């Protein structure tokens, strides 16, 4: 796996798309390696769906190049389409069709037939847990089941790449959890690219996040990398037992350290405890120094942690203006 993982299965270079006056995607470049689960994160209207529509060769980009498994999307659309399964937004299905017939129809267009096709239908139906509703008309199914039928359709030819546009939109919380764990499961042996405007979705399912805003990529990396990149030198939070007094002595000691830029007391919420946020000067992790200081002064430490800006905050920061 180690070597295979480094092969890019999707290469997008300087992708741009205009719809008339609207400049939806303004030059997006990224690569997705084999086996990655990548979340395309961005507010509504950021250009996520447009990117996916270009990758699936539904739309042609205004400029830029897209390669899937080394093949240019515009030059060999038919070969490229065999490589991926696609779940468009809102799981569009033919409502008057029986689920089984629908999967048959897609399977046939995917080049399957006979016993092969029947086995594949049975396999994907059990994988996404729709075996018990295969005989029903799609229109009578709940939204969660329709999403699964559409997912089954995307998996029918056992594609290497799975492209999912807003896979959990409109589902109830239980269905959301189920679909997410399904995606994680499916991502074990294939490359998955999914778009969403929900941060939790990415954290729950993806190895890597690409944040897109106003048609541009504003961040790209693992959740950890993004946090580290965007929040260097985070403040450290100390909680110290303080049966009496207002903690001004502690504050004075902290502020006296030359490596402390500032210390701010925060409401601890519990009687007998004192909380303080310490912002260190640039460079290095100040937690060990703080622990040493606490030891020297004989304070009884209850808690120490780095105040990372959470991804929610980061996402808001990156996609606000």
């Amino acid at each position, binding site marked *: 796996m180690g070597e295979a993982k480094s092969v890019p299965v999707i290469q997008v270079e300087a992708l741009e798309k205009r719809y008339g006056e609207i400049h939806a995607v303004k030059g997006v470049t990224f690569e997705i390696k084999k086996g990655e689960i990548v979340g395309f994160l961005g507010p509504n209207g950021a250009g996520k769906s447009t990117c996916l529509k270009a990758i699936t060769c*539904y739309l042609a980009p205004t400029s830029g190049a897209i390669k899937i498994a080394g093949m240019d999307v515009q030059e060999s659309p038919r070969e490229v389409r065999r490589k991926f399964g696609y779940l*468009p937004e809102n799981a569009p299905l033919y409502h008057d*069709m029986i689920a089984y017939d629908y999967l048959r129809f897609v399977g046939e*267009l995917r080049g399957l037939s006979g016993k092969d096709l029947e086995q594949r239908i049975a396999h994907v139906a059990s994988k996404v847990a729709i075996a018990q509703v295969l005989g029903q008309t799609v229109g009578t199914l709940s939204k969660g089941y329709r999403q699964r039928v559409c997912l089954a359709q995307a998996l029918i030819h056992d594609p290497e790449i799975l492209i999912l546009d807003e896979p959990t939109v409109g589902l109830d919380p239980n269905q959301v959890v189920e679909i997410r764990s399904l995606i994680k499961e499916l991502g074990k042996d294939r490359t998955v690219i999914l778009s969403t405007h929900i941060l939790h979705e990415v954290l729950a399912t993806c190895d890597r996040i690409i944040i897109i805003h106003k048609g541009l990529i504003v961040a790209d990396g693992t959740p950890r990398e993004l946090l580290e990149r965007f929040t260097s030198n985070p403040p450290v939070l100390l909680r110290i037992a303080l049966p009496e007094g207002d903690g001004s002595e502690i504050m004075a000691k902290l502020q006296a350290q030359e490596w402390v830029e500032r210390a701010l007391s925060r409401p601890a919420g519990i009687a007998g405890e004192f909380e303080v946020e310490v912002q260190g000067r640039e460079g290095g992790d100040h937690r060990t120094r703080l622990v040493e200081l606490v030891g020297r002064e004989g304070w009884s430490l209850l808690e120490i942690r780095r105040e990372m800006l959470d991804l929610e905050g980061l996402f808001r920061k990156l996609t606000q203006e």
Partner: protein
Amino acid sequence: MRNVWIMGKRELAAYFSSAVAYVAITVFLVVVGVKFFIIDGFFKTGEASLRSFFELVPLFFVFYLPAITMRSIAEEKRQGTFELLATLPISDSEIVLGKYLGAVGFLAVTLAVTLVYPLGLALLGDPDWGAILGGYIGLLFLGAALLAAGIMASTWTQSQIVSYILGTLIGAIFFFTERLVRLFWETARDAVAYVSFDSHYSNFVRGVLDTRDILFFVAITALFLVVATFSLNSRRWK
């Protein structure tokens, strides 16, 4: 070709999976039957001929067939199913041809049901089978062209209503222009007759199978379907 067949099969099944198909065919049979037997007084004329049937059905087709095709692509676009279909390994021309094949299948079923009329006729007298066969072939070609116009109109919009109106309009232009022009401008008649559905169709009804008429319908059908394919493809224009 395999994809066209798969698409066509699904389309035809979709027509018959709802009550709409049965209602449409019943309405067709009733309207044509009432006009043919009651209004035109088939039993009074005492003639074992389907001539008035073959005059009436084309008129009816102009309004009936666009209703068959109005959903075909417009509704797929509206529901978003088109996006899924178009990202399967199938080309736009195969989508158009498959949709068209399904519609022609529906037309064939409708025409097959009307075979009760000539068969009934055979019980009453001795009809001119050549004219009847010619008439049916003519209806098939005419209907196929009207369906192609309907499919083309269906690629232009997401609204079934707009699709129906445009389809009917195009059919009506090709069908009625000659009659209109004939009223006002006698000299242009021949030129207009050349592109008129009516004049080509009437040769079939007279029992004359002329390659020029067949070629005309084949060409105009192909033209509509090519435009439909271009129209679907236009989403990929930069």
